[in-house]
């Protein structure tokens, strides 16, 4: 009898703890997501999830005055959708493949005529919208998408993929094939996309120069610095003065030494600056079948090794707890776009730099971008007109895009809309009352992404992993670490060789 009682008790404890775990997970879903996220746009997912809260938090004069404008925009868009001609469409089901809720909430909030039915279903007019959401962890999203795209030709009418989303790191893998439709075939003209930033088009342009996707957001990055540390070490916390100390990599590294002398780290990890270097390469990762290490990437290794050896930064992973320590002080700079500082850097938590509004923004040594989501039409879609209209409304309609900026704090992919926003007197509380929009706009114009290859995701990931060993001293020389990189690359892409 005793044993029964004990075992019953143990079972109850187990079940209770399991359930408790579930609940905890649900409550901290946003935290957990950002913890485990290994890719930039995961964080964009947070953006979406917290968008509603954040929008109210950062609500200011600009938002209020824009309300009326948004309403008129909505009406205009409604009118546009009534005129939409769907006669070319034969499909009754629109299948959308994506990895998080972000695009869904954009469509729900901003696409005229979209009605939500339940978590994975919606309706546009007579067409059923089906959401196929697979998280991108461990490559699951791409594996799932690959499988369905390859079976696209044989799939039943209602099962065919109509629209799917891609990230910059692997966009070319899909764009440079016949599985993705040129946007021109979906009725999007050059005039429609004229206002979009060039880099957002570079990413989804195939090797023949055909544009095959569009994005509603731009994610130009800037350098965020801790104003307190700047005031203490550099003698001024004003952006114009700080920019002088970080205007190029040589000056940046000199500043790093000064900052270390005062007891702070210049960046949280070596991976913080990786993107800034890797977005400014002068050659592709892969040329033909040979992997080639660009000078600027090599420069990242050399600069970072010096920083690590001087203990001016660490080798922690992005999104790890060690990386996040700097959100509460002791780290001079983080590199990232608006969503990073707005949603990921512990804003609202007591004692964090963001809560106190003590971050500042400067352009930094070089321009770069981080994150972003592109919409692609799948070859074989039976709803081409609808797919085209979704693209046009969300990425070309200036009114809807302004609406997105105001409601979701995104940086919209529309030059005119952003210029208007910049002049509207927008200021950021987190950045101590600074208006960062001109910097983002300047950055977005400067980004040059003509040197992309379809292997970028794997190369970037494996290169950072391999170099971590070099920085930590586990690989004696750069060559040893490079050997590790070669191994990893040939495992991932058997057709490639490393020079």
């Amino acid at each position: 009898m005793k044993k029964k009682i004990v075992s019953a008790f143990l079972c109850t404890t187990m079940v209770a703890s399991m359930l408790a775990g579930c609940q905890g997970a649900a409550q901290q879903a946003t935290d957990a997501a950002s913890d485990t996220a290994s890719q930039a746009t995961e964080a964009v997912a947070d953006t979406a999830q917290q968008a509603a809260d954040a929008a109210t938090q950062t609500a200011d004069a600009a938002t209020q005055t824009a309300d009326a404008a948004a309403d008129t925009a909505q009406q205009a868009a409604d009118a546009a959708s009534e005129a939409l001609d769907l006669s070319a469409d034969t499909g009754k089901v629109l299948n959308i493949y994506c990895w998080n809720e972000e695009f869904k909430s954009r469509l729900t909030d901003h696409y005229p005529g979209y009605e939500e039915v339940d978590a994975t279903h919606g309706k546009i007019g007579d067409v059923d919208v089906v959401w196929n959401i697979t998280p991108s962890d461990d490559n699951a999203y791409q594996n799932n998408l690959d499988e369905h795209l390859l079976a696209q030709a044989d799939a039943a009418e209602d099962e065919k993929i109509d629209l799917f989303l891609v990230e910059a790191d692997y966009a070319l893998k899909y764009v440079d094939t016949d599985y993705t439709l040129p946007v021109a075939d979906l009725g999007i003209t050059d005039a429609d996309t004229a206002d979009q930033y060039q880099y957002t088009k570079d990413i989804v342009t195939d090797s023949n120069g055909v544009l095959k996707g569009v994005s509603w957001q731009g994610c130009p990055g800037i350098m965020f610095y801790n104003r307190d540390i700047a005031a203490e070490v550099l003698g001024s916390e004003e952006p114009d003065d700080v920019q002088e100390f970080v205007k190029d990599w040589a000056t940046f590294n000199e500043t790093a030494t000064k900052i270390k002398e005062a007891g702070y780290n210049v960046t949280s990890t070596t991976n913080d600056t990786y993107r800034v270097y890797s977005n400014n390469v002068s050659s592709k990762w892969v040329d033909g079948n040979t992997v080639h290490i660009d000078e600027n990437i090599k420069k990242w290794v050399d600069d970072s090794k010096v920083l690590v050896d001087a203990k001016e930064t660490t080798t922690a992973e992005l999104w790890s707890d060690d990386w996040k320590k700097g959100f509460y002080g002791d780290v001079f700079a983080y590199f990232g776009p608006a969503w990073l500082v707005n949603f990921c850097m512990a804003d609202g938590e007591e004692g964090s730099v963001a809560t106190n509004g003590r971050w500042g923004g400067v352009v930094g040594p070089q321009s770069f971008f981080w994150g972003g989501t592109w919409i692609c039409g799948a070859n074989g879609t039976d709803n081409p007109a609808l797919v085209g209209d979704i693209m046009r409304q969300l990425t070309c309609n200036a009114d809807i895009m302004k609406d997105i900026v105001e409601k979701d704090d995104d940086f919209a992919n529309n030059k005119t809309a952003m210029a208007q926003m910049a002049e509207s007197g927008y200021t950021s509380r987190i950045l101590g009352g600074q208006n960062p929009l001109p910097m983002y706009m300047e950055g977005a114009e400067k980004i040059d992404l003509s040197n992309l290859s379809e292997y970028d995701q794997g190369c970037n990931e494996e290169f950072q992993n391999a170099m971590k060993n070099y920085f930590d001293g586990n690989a004696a020389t750069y060559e040893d670490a490079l050997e590790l990189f070669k191994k990893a690359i040939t495992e991932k892409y058997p057709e490639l060789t490393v020079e």
Partner: protein
Amino acid sequence: MCRGNRSQQPVISEENIKEKEESVLSNQSSEVSQARMEATYNSANGRGNKNVVKYNRWGYFFLIPFIVVYIIFQLIPLVSTVYNSFYENYMSGLKQIGPNFVGIENYKQLFVSGDIWIYFKNTMIMWILGFLPQIFFSLLLGSWFSDNRLKLRAAGFFKTVIYLPNLIMASAFSMLFFTLFADSGPVNSILMQMGILSEPFSFMSNATSVRSLVGFMNFIMWFGNTTILLMAGMLGIDPGLFEAAEIDGCTSTQKFFLITLPILKPILLFVLVTSLIGGLQMFDVPQILTNGTGDPMRSSMTLIMYLNKHLFSKNYGMAGALSVLLFIITGILSLIIFNFSGNKEAINRKAR
């Protein structure tokens, strides 16, 4: 036995009376038994054989589910793995490369780089790091739990508790350890507050510490399971042996080494072999702990993690070759263990 003999007796007497008489006369017992056997055989040929076949049929029916499952889930994959290992067959982005027959090119590539032996070594080191403490504590706990004279209180409770770690998912367990041993994790801050460390120790970028952590996790997860197995073996030992030994003045240590261990040998062998095979297939713990990189410098990369690397590009050829190799290694190691410990007994028994 007796009953069977009796029922057979009349048959013999009716049909083979003459033979029997002869044999009795000749008075040779060997012939008698031969005649008896023949008689039984003859009678079985008459009616019994059909019944036996009918009965045996049920045996085959009951085997069908196993055979079907075995063929679908074991044999076909096994054969196709071997088949695939001779082909070049992978995905490059969305393009399928192959399958092209390349002979033993995949195997060559595995051996030329020589990395496979490094990963094999890593796997074995981490297995041993986990297995040694595991077998030690399991034997200790098992002998305590099964010792009648100790009369441990709440033994059932503790048996359950030591088994509990096995119920946690390995991935959850390694996530936990990853957080605990992070540079700014609780372990580092405790050590620093106690004044043992002056600055945080990077557990994850030191080969020894990563391997030890993996070994430790495997130990914690599996020692309960081993304890239960060994305890079952120990409880099966005749208590009379212990009593007799006690009467002869045997100490507890002597009892353990001279009675328990030798009798437990077959169970120990079973534990060793299953643990070895499990150890060779070690994957989830190091994979999650090192985020799939096997860092530092791939010193904690196991064979299966290496296999998993090939699955990113769906490289069936290389993965197949590696699997076949792993199959052979497992076979060889198991044979070696059998020859060293188990087989001797079997040979002795045959000789007797």
